[in-house]
């Protein structure tokens, strides 16, 4: 019983500002239009009082100039051009953001305007205090007055700061735009190449058919094999070309990129160059490996490819095992490992390692 009472009182406190009952959520309280029946309706709010009104009502009531809010007991004078779409479900958040925007436009200093971090934090704290007061209705009039006073006193400073910031943002906007363009360009090139590839495939198919039907003396298998080879060759060269084009685009992009210089400076500020292995990589093997067949076709036909390689009939036989091949097992790894393990200790002095 008592808990229900508490809930209802806190609710009535809220509902003054934020009428948010389930029933009223999708219904305009002025014209009673329901969202369910007219799905195209939109709700707008005005940062004066944050009462939710549907678009058509706003048009109807406020198109002739400022008028009082139609909510009972509100009566704040609203203007049509201040109405905006509600972004957050919770109107409290919507309001806080508006307050933040307003205060932030006046108190617009950034960290570089302060001599040390402590000063800057103090400034931020004071700004937060103002926002908190306005948001929770503590000394609103006094705070508002202070805000206006500060704005009047620092008018020129604020304007200068705004100008500087907008310059910076322009750079960023330019960068983002350029990046978007780069992305689109890349996609375009790739699509174009895909279309070309398809056409080429079709053409090849046709040629193949022509050749086969013309009944030339050459073996059909040979023709097909040759064509497949051509296809593979072309695919790899196309891939390379695509890579090249992409790199070119990247480079051009970096040249025009205003942030690139910054990134480069950052890179230069590191004392040591980046090393992927942190210097821990043994490049000087103590042996040289003889050529070992690694291609699947060569391995299937290994007898003809091991003249200059290692003589180990047992392992060489394993290399042909299709199950082994499918699992990624390769002859090369076996010999490499055997030699690594045989010579790994050379040049390693145990006394030195211990110390």
């Amino acid at each position, binding site marked *: 019983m008592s808990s229900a009472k508490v809930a209802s009182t806190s609710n009535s406190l809220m509902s003054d500002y934020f009428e948010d009952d389930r029933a009223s959520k999708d219904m305009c309280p002025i014209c009673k239009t329901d969202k369910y029946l007219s799905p195209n309706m939109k709700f707008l709010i005005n940062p004066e009082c944050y009462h939710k009104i549907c678009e058509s009502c706003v048009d109807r009531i406020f198109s002739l100039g400022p008028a009082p809010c139609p909510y009972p007991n509100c009566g704040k004078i609203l203007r049509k051009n201040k109405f905006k779409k509600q972004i957050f479900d919770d109107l409290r958040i919507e309001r806080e953001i508006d307050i933040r925007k307003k205060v932030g436009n006046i108190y617009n200093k950034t960290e570089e305007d302060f001599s040390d971090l402590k000063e800057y934090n103090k400034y931020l704290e004071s700004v937060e205090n103002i926002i908190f007061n306005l948001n929770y209705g503590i000394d609103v009039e006094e705070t508002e007055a202070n805000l206006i006073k500060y704005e009047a006193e620092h008018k020129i400073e604020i304007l200068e700061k705004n100008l500087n910031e907008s310059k910076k943002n322009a750079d960023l906007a330019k960068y983002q735009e350029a990046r978007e363009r780069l992305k689109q360009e*890349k*996609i375009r090139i*790739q699509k174009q190449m895909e279309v070309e590839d398809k056409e080429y495939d079709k053409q090849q198919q046709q040629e193949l058919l022509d050749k086969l039907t013309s009944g030339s003396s050459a073996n059909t298998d040979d023709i097909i094999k040759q064509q497949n080879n051509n296809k593979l060759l072309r695919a790899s060269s196309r891939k390379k070309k695509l890579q090249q084009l*992409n790199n070119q685009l*990247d480079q051009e992009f970096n040249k025009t990129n205003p942030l690139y210089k910054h*990134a480069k400076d*950052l*890179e230069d500020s*590191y004392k040591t160059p*980046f090393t*992927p*292995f*942190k210097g*821990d*990589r*043994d490049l000087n093997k103590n042996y040289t490996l003889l050529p070992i067949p690694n291609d*699947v076709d060569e391995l299937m036909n290994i007898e003809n490819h091991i003249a200059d390689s290692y003589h180990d009939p*047992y*392992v060489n036989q*394993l290399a042909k*095992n*299709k*199950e*082994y*091949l*499918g*699992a*990624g*097992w*390769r002859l090369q*790894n*076996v010999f490499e*490992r055997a030699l*690594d*393990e045989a010579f790994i200790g050379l040049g390693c002095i145990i006394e030195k390692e211990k110390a």
Partner: protein
Amino acid sequence: MSTTTKTIGNDSKSPIKYSKDRKVGEGTYAVVYLGNQISTQRKIAIKEIKTGIFKDGLDMSAIREVKYLQELKHPNVIELVDVFSTTNNLNLVLEFLPCDLEVLIKDTTIVFKSADIKSWLLMTLRGIHHCHRNFILHRDLKPNNLLLAPDGELKIADFGLARSLGNPNEDLSSNVVTRWYRAPELLFGAKHYTGAVDIWSIGIIFAELMLRTPYLPGKDDVDQLDVTFRALGTPTEQIWPNVSNLPMYNALRVYPPPSRQELRNRFSAATEKALDLLISMTQLDPSRRCDSTQALLHEFFTESPRPTEPENLPKKKVKKSNDEDESEGGTKRRKL
């Protein structure tokens, strides 16, 4: 909090080497205690292997862990400080690592920058490169086996499934690696796989770091195949020669391989180089997958931004000391 101390029998000069401070976790095979190395005051974890509950003596994973960790010493592999035995149990003294990557991935309050992901990936690859050049396969890489030291350094841990490459004709068990990180050749029951299985796991972890959610979460072994191929295409003889000779090969459903654009959409924050590396680490055909050296030399690591220095990487937020105890226990328990 009672402090018991352990002595080491065979070293009479300094009988007390480690202190055992408190229990932080317990699993089926071991109990983990937090302690100190007396001589250096360094924090350590003591893993006490339970004996006597197995009819064949010690648990296999404990033997594996000792066997391989004794051989490996690298900044990105967990250090086995010491091994000693008391009357009826075996104790592994490991360096104490308070956090793991899974905890960070799950903590949605932490934001990962692309440089952070690069740094973790780099350290993982350095660690696995060291294992592979010593011909040791880890076979259980996943975010909660990648532990994080207080200084931010990432260390590969849990060598309970590790093994060294045996004879060329020796069969390896294909029932290894936690399911979500299992390479396609293992799903097909291959018995002669290579270090490429670890690279696959790292590729999946890389994807998970970008997505902040598991990349290929299969519900069971059959579903895992389906999920994997739905994401990366069904392997055919053309893209993976001899795949149909693997014991459990079946092309359940044929999915087309994803286009570059699909991958771009999947990993919207990844750069082109990042995608290149991800693609080459998650090649279905193990012989086309890159090895750890190729991965480390990839341009992804040299392009801007530079990998974050370990000490600047995001860390688990410590709230209260009470909370800390519990969460530490949690991390350790998973490590068992």
